[in-house]
């Protein structure tokens, strides 16, 4: 990956991929809002959404129930999927940059498992949701990423496979602790279980409001560090010669990516592979600079998860397929492909 980066010259980033990205996201948003178990006329949906914008007042023709379906159930879910997907994709891209490891991903580094443990402890102890859940998830996630990194180093350098194996080990341990906590509180076991598989079922805008500030901070910090990540990709020493405070950058990037992951996990459970599928798809399609990967990653991650959620809530209606199943179904083969490529190179 490193050879394509030219940190010394400010090459302009091409605009075309962004146009495509926004177009795809727009299409995903439109499909997500227009389609669902309750069939609503597309025209009315468009008018209704326009009507919700400030200063615009049109009559959509939807009755009170249809309007509530659109606005209380479907729209928040689509927006939440977009925020979670975008945040996870940017976090995944950032982990890959900071660990200089194409296989890094919130899920595989154990970060999601750590966040899951933190959140499970809160759910099982019956103590509050919302921000408490996010903070607990963040604490667990930071513990996991520190453990993974320390274990990876102790086990011998920062080779691609070592870090991943450390991540798998840490994830297995945190998952075991999580299962134990779950067993202790068997009355909440189903709630936790449903949440482990990942879910975006939400009512109204509360979850969106909860995740939005964390997602915004995390994504903004990471995108602000896109050039630093490009420089880091060349190598630690080179980066230092170029005046990049590598240690500080690493810590800030890891914390920001972990915060984003934790917030995403707190509202939607464990949704894997977004952080690996999206950045790599962008690398293949649009280029390997983090100036492209991170901003476009948000757009692409949002589109990916919106579509995955659309499949999850329609494919076996009236039941719902957990969204984690769908992202894994797409993501695991893709991961195999990336693994093969990275070992060959």
């Amino acid at each position: 990956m490193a050879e394509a980066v030219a940190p010394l010259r400010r090459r302009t980033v091409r605009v075309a991929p962004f146009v495509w990205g926004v177009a795809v996201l727009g299409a995903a948003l439109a499909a997500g809002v227009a389609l669902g178990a309750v069939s609503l006329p597309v025209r009315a949906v468009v008018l209704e959404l326009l009507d919700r914008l400030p200063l615009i007042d049109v009559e959509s023709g939807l009755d009170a129930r249809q309007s509530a379906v659109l606005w209380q159930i479907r729209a928040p879910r689509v927006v939440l999927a977009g925020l979670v997907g975008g945040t996870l994709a940017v976090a995944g891209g950032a982990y890959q940059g900071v660990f200089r490891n194409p296989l890094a991903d919130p899920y595989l580094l154990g970060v999601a498992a750590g966040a899951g443990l933190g959140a499970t402890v809160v759910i099982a102890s019956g103590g509050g949701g919302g921000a408490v859940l996010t903070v607990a998830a963040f604490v667990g996630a930071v513990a996991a990423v520190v453990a993974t990194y320390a274990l990876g180093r102790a086990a011998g350098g920062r080779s691609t496979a070592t870090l991943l194996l450390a991540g798998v080990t840490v994830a297995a341990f945190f998952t075991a602790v999580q299962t134990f906590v779950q067993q202790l509180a068997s009355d909440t076991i189903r709630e936790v279980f449903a949440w482990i598989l990942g879910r975006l079922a939400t009512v109204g805008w509360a979850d969106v409001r909860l995740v939005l500030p964390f997602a915004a901070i995390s994504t903004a910090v990471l995108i602000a560090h896109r050039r630093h990540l490009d420089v880091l990709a060349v190598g630690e020493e080179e980066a230092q010669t170029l005046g990049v405070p590598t240690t500080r950058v690493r810590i800030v990037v890891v914390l920001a990516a972990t915060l984003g992951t934790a917030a995403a996990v707190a509202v939607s459970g464990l949704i894997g592979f977004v952080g690996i599928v999206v950045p790599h798809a962008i690398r293949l399609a649009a280029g390997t600079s983090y100036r492209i990967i991170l901003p476009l990653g948000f757009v692409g991650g949002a589109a990916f998860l919106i579509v995955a959620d659309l499949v999850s809530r329609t494919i076996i209606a009236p039941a719902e397929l957990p969204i984690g199943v769908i992202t894994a179904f797409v993501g695991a083969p893709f991961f195999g492909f990336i693994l093969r490529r990275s070992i060959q190179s």
Partner: protein
Amino acid sequence: MRRLLLVLVLALVAAACGSDESAAPATTAPPDSTTAPATTAPADSTTLPPLQEPGFPVTITSDAGTATVERRPERIAALSSVFVEMLYAIGAGDQVFAGDLFTNYPPETDSLEKIDSFNLNAEAIIELDPDLVVLSFDPGDVAASLEAVGIPAVLMGTPSSLNGAYEQIQLLGDATGRSSEAAELIDQMRTDIKEIVNELDGKARGITFYHETDPFDFYTPNSSSFVGALYAALGMENIADAAPDEFNSGFPQLSPEFIVEANPQMIFIASSGESVETMAARPGWDQLSALRADGTVVLLNPDVASRWGPRVVDLLRAIAQGVERFYETL
């Protein structure tokens, strides 16, 4: 480009936050009446108000919070087999159109729509256009989604006693316009249960037993669970009561060793696919005196033994008959 995206996101969010309250549960006013408050109502007075049904609207409170049922529901989705049984028993069967995948009693329920209640999609339920939804489990917060679109939802988990079951029956009665039928059913159940207990005349007191629901991990109801409370009411001694249940789940996990060591006088099998033979074939279990030729094993109907509906009477009767058999072998 990024600025454009930001503007887009901000606009969406602003719209989301701004109009949350206005989209709250369906108001009763028709959409075209926004300009006309009560004063311009002469047009309305010419049309007759809807016939007021006795008992409606009714406000019901369950684990899903408070819901208002405006008129007698005619299209109920009862997404748990136990609620289907309760509704049929109070004569509200005609008002039910859907049950869950386990729904199989009474036989008339064959024709109901069967819905997988474990991973419900809120929109899909709304699309079926129910006028009352009864749930026993709701991790995805479907009840809140239903409330948001003005469909009343009731959420009730497993009760820990007979009284809890009676309360659920009465609540379903009140919600469906069958209050008196529900009260009658509860009276009948109380009478039947009293009769069974009287007839047993304390014979069950002190008998030790094991009630098997889980042949794999041996999670076993103790006396603080619903089914365990029935045995406890007869004065029977549950071996699971000696097992630690720190978290008050009502279902402590036993081990095969623990069960063999306890050597209960009677065994009740409430798990499907198990029998005296399969139990005796487990390593070490042939030592259990209840599994010997002169021992007493009672095969319970797993559905009846796991539902807290009107057939609880049948369950208690089966237990009582088992106890009688146990005495005959003494």
